[in-house]
């Protein structure tokens, strides 16, 4: 499965990089994320409850930062495990400066295992894309809010 796309975020590249390079912030943007913990210098684990119609359940996500070139790109290895199966893959995130913020290009290559793989692959792909887009919308929102809070308190 491959999901690729892009989104413009209203924050400078180094701020976005800091956020995506720190999976505690990135993972917290996943809809339904309940807890994020750091398990090693580059490893993170998150629990999230996704309320999908007909496929109830909690999922555990582990992420490891494998490569980071600040503030341009970042590569993550990840694995999501839940009752309906597992998704294992790699995500490449690239950032470029654009007017009014930065452009985030993402590519996710993943393998689906377990009963989930029996579903129409379009369905899992669209689901993954939907979750990613919602997560990025939230990230954008969080970045904007942080910037506003920063301005208000006049922090450097």
């Amino acid at each position: 499965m491959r999901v690729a796309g892009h989104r413009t975020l209203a924050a400078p590249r180094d701020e976005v990089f800091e956020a995506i390079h720190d999976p505690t912030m990135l993972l917290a943007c996943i809809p339904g994320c309940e807890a994020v913990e750091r398990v090693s210098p580059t490893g993170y684990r998150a629990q999230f409850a996704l309320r999908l119609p007909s496929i109830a359940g909690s999922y555990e996500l582990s992420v490891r930062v494998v490569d980071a070139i600040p503030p341009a790109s970042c590569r993550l290895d990840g694995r999501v495990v839940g009752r309906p199966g597992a998704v294992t893959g790699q995500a490449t995130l690239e950032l470029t400066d654009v007017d009014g913020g930065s452009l985030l290009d993402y590519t996710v290559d993943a393998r689906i295992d377990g009963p989930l793989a029996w579903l129409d692959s379009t369905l899992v792909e669209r689901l993954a894309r939907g979750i990613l887009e919602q997560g990025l919308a939230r990230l954008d929102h969080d970045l904007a809010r942080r910037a506003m809070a920063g301005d208000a308190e006049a922090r450097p």
Partner: protein
Amino acid sequence: MSVTEYFRPASVNEAIELLARHGPDLLVMAGGTIAMPLVNEGISAPERVMSLRAAGLDGLRREPGRIRIGAACPLQGLLELDDVPLLQAAARHTGSWAIRNMGTVGGNLFAPPPAGDVTVALLALDAVLVVAGAGSRREIRLDSFHTGFMTTALGPDELLVEIRIAPPTGATAFHKLGRRQASTPAVVTVAARAIVDGGRVSEARIALGAVGPHPFRARAAEAALTGSRLDTASITRTATAAVDASDPATDGIASEWYRRRMTRLLVERALTDIADRPAGGAA
């Protein structure tokens, strides 16, 4: 892995309590026509299942100025609504007899595209949803309910309890194209409603299904139609706006290309139907 507990709450409050107690691991099931195939195939493997069958949500009530449809009202129930031909047509084109007897109106709102034909009709009727959580009750407009593919604005502890519509004003039309006449997922589904006042459209609703991550209103198309005389030029313009608003996917039913072509055709057909009988409401 198999179901270890099966709950059959006798009231909405009991259902909400169970949802609060068991959280996201509880599979909420109304008619089961979406959930059961997934459970049987082993894709969904819930430990706990809650059926809404006895929770008192299957009613269909008429009140002055509104119709209240219980979330677990069978799709078949919509066929009683002689004054809402749009919903009758949508129900008639959803699944088979067996599916319509089991499947529910509320469940249809959660059906992933290309399913969810009744939802498309409900969008054109400005439906409002009533959702209940522990000690809370709120209304969500259907056009802001879906947040993405298979995701909704429903909170983790909330339950959809009712769908409300007003008896429709204006003329309506429903068109669905599938790979066969009946019991088929959609290539595209179109529900349209227009109020024509003094020869011009004063209000328009154009809802599309199976050509996006969820059923949606093509607002640019509605704007293109509003104020027009429902002539060929405005119908063509509206259909173009509807195609532009769609974001279809290629799947086992149809290609993205074909879906776009058929979106244009079906929107044109629906509006031509309305133009031919602006006073009537038959779908």
